[in-house]
C-alpha cells in the first residue's frame, strides 16, 4: 500500500461521501439514463399490447361504453382464421408484398450497379432519385390519385401516348384487375431508392483487389459479376428486402389514400381491413384479435431480420 496523502485521504473518506464527491456510480447513471426510455416504451407500446391481448378475448365495442363486456374466449380468433375474407386480404397483401419487392430489387439493384460505374455527377443524380422516398406517403399517394384519373390524369395520358389506347378507356384505381398494380407502381416509385441506396453501399464495400485478382485469373466480366458482385451484395440486398417486407406488411397510408381498399376489396391490405373493423365497424374485440395475429406475423419477420442484420454486421 502506498503512503501518499491522496490515498490516505481517500481511505479515510466514508463511502457515502466519496460517492457524492465522485458523482453517482456508473451503474446508477446507466439506469437513470435508460429508464425514461424504457418507461415510455412500456407505456406507449407494451401496455397497449397487453391491453389488446385482453380485449381480443372479449366482445367489447369502443363506441358503446355502457354495453356489458362479455368474455368470448377464442371465438374472435376462430372467426378471423376461418373467415374467407381474411384470406382474401392476406392474398392482396401477399401480392402487394411480392411484386413491390420484386420490382424494387430489380430496379434498385440495376440503378445501384449503374451508379457504381462512377460517371460524372453521380452524386447529384443519386440525391434526386432518393427524394420520393423521404416524402409523406399520404400526401404523395393522394396526388397520385390525380395522376391516375382516367381522362385528365397525366399517367393515363402518358400510357395512352405510348400504347395508343384511349386515356379514358382504363381506370387504374377503379378496375378490379388494374388497382392492385396501381398501388404496386406507386410503392415501387417511392421505395426503389431505398433498395438502391443499400445495394450501392454493398457494391462500394467490395474492395478493388478482389476484382484485380479475378482479372489476373482471367475470369470473364460476367463470371466476376456472378461470383464476386452478387454474393458480396447479397447480405445487403437481404437486409433491404426484410426492411421493405416489414414496412409493406404494415402498409397503410399510401394505399388508403390511393384506393381506400377498393374497388370492392381487391386492394384491402390487412392494415386497411383492421382499420375498418376497429374504427368504422367499432368491433374492438374482434379487431384486437386481428391486431395480435398481425403482430405475431410481423414479429416472426422481425426475428429473421435481426438475425440477418447481425450477419451483415459481422462481415
Amino acid at each position, binding site marked *: 500500500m502506498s503512503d501518499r496523502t491522496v490515498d490516505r485521504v481517500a481511505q479515510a473518506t466514508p463511502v457515502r461521501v466519496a460517492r457524492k464527491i465522485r*458523482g*453517482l456510480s456508473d*451503474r446508477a447513471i*446507466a439506469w*437513470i*439514463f435508460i429508464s*425514461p426510455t*424504457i418507461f415510455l*416504451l412500456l407505456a406507449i*407500446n407494451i401496455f*397497449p399490447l397487453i391491453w*389488446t391481448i385482453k*380485449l381480443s378475448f372479449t366482445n367489447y365495442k369502443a363506441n358503446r361504453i355502457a354495453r356489458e363486456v362479455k368474455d368470448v374466449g377464442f371465438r374472435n380468433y376462430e372467426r378471423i382464421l376461418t373467415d374467407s375474407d381474411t384470406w382474401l386480404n392476406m392474398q392482396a397483401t401477399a401480392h402487394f408484398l411480392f411484386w413491390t419487392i420484386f420490382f424494387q430489387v430489380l430496379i434498385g439493384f440495376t440503378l445501384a450497379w449503374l*451508379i457504381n*460505374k462512377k*460517371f460524372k*455527377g*453521380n*452524386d447529384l443524380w443519386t*440525391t434526386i*432519385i*432518393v*427524394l*420520393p422516398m*423521404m*416524402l*409523406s*406517403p399520404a*400526401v*404523395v399517394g*393522394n*396526388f397520385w390519385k*390525380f395522376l391516375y*384519373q382516367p381522362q*385528365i*390524369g*397525366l399517367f393515363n*395520358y402518358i400510357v395512352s401516348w405510348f400504347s395508343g389506347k384511349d*386515356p379514358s378507356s382504363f381506370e387504374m384505381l377503379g378496375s378490379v384487375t388494374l388497382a392492385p398494380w396501381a398501388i404496386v407502381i406507386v410503392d415501387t416509385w417511392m421505395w*426503389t431508392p431505398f433498395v438502391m441506396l*443499400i445495394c450501392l*453501399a454493398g457494391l462500394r464495400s467490395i474492395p*478493388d483487389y478482389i*476484382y484485380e485478382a479475378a482479372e489476373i485469373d482471367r475470369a470473364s466480366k460476367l463470371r466476376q459479376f456472378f461470383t464476386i458482385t452478387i454474393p458480396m451484395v447479397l447480405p*445487403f440486398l437481404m437486409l433491404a428486402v426484410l*426492411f421493405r417486407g*416489414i414496412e409493406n406488411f404494415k402498409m397503410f*397510408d399510401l394505399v*388508403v389514400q390511393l384506393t381506400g381498399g377498393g374497388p370492392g376489396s381487391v386492394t384491402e391490405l*390487412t*392494415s386497411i381491413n383492421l*382499420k375498418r373493423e*376497429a*374504427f368504422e365497424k367499432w368491433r*374492438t374485440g374482434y379487431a384486437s384479435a386481428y391486431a*395480435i395475429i398481425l403482430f405475431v406475423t410481423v*414479429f416472426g419477420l*422481425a426475428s429473421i431480420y435481426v438475425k440477418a*442484420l447481425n450477419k451483415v*454486421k459481422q462481415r
Partner: protein
Amino acid sequence: MSSFSVTEPSNRSKWIAGFLVIAYALITMIPLVWILLTGFKSPADAISYPPKMVFDPTLEGYVNLFTTRTRQTQEFLEANPPQNWADEIVRQYDMVIVGPSKFGERFMNSVIIGFGSTFLSIFLGTLAAYAFSRFKVPLKDDLLFFILSTRMMPPVAVAIPIFLMFRNLGLSDTHLGMILLYTGVNISLAVWLLKGFIDEIPREYEEAALIDGYTRFQAFYKVVLPQAATGIASTAIFCLIFAWNEYAFAVLLTSANAQTAPPFIPTIIGIGGLDWPAVAAGATIFLIPVMIFTILMRKHLLRGITFGAVRK
C-alpha cells in the same frame, strides 16, 4: 486513380450508365414536378385534356388553400370593390374571401408536434444511447432488440388501445398526446442511431476528462455531447421527417384540435373534386421542407433509413 486500373469502368460504359440513371431520375421526378406545376394552375387548366404543360401561372391554388370563400350576389360584389390581389383572384368566380382556412392551423400542428416529439426523442434517446454505448447494462442486447421490435408493430394495431388509453387520460386529440405517441415511436430510431454515433467517439477522450477530475455527468455533456453533435443533428432530422410524414396515427387519433397536415391535405379537395391546384399547393408547401432536409442529410441518409445497420 491510375488509368491502367482494371476495375475502373471504361468511358463508354460510364456514358451508358450515366444516360440510364439520368433517364430514371427524370422519369421519377415527373410526379413531383407535376405537383409543383399544378399548384400554379387554375382549376380549369389543372383538369384540361390533354394535360397542359404550358399555361398561365396563377396563385389561385394558394389563395384557395389559405382562405375560405363564399359566393355573393352581383350587388354585393359591386358595392364592395376588391381590397387586394387575392380578392381580385376570387372575384372572377363571384366570390369573396371570408376568412382564413384551416390549413395554417394544421400546418402549425405539424410543426408543434414534429418539433416537440423530436426534441423529446433526442433528449431521451441521447441519454439511453450513451448508457448503452458506455456502460455494462444487464441484458443489453435484449433491451436493444426490445427497443427495435416496438417499431415492428403496425400502427393501426397499436392505435386501438392507444385510442382507449388517450380517451381515459384526456389525451385524445391533444398536442401532448401526439407528442408522447410520436416520441414512443421515434425513440427506437433515436437510440439505435445515436448509439452508433456515440460508439464511434473514442473512449479515451472521456477517460482523460475523468482523470482530470470531471464527474461522469460532466464528461458526458462537456466531452461526449459536443463530439456527437453531428450525429445528434442528423438523428433529429430523421425523427422530424418521420413525425412530419406520419399519417396513420394522425388520421385515427386526431380531429378538430390537434390534426396535422397529412390527414388534412387530402380533404382540401372539397365539393365536386375540382380544386386540385389547392391540394397541390398544400402538398408543395408541405413537401419542400423535407426535400431540403433530404439534400442536407444526403451523407447520413443510408444510416438513418437502416437504423444504423449500414454505415457506408
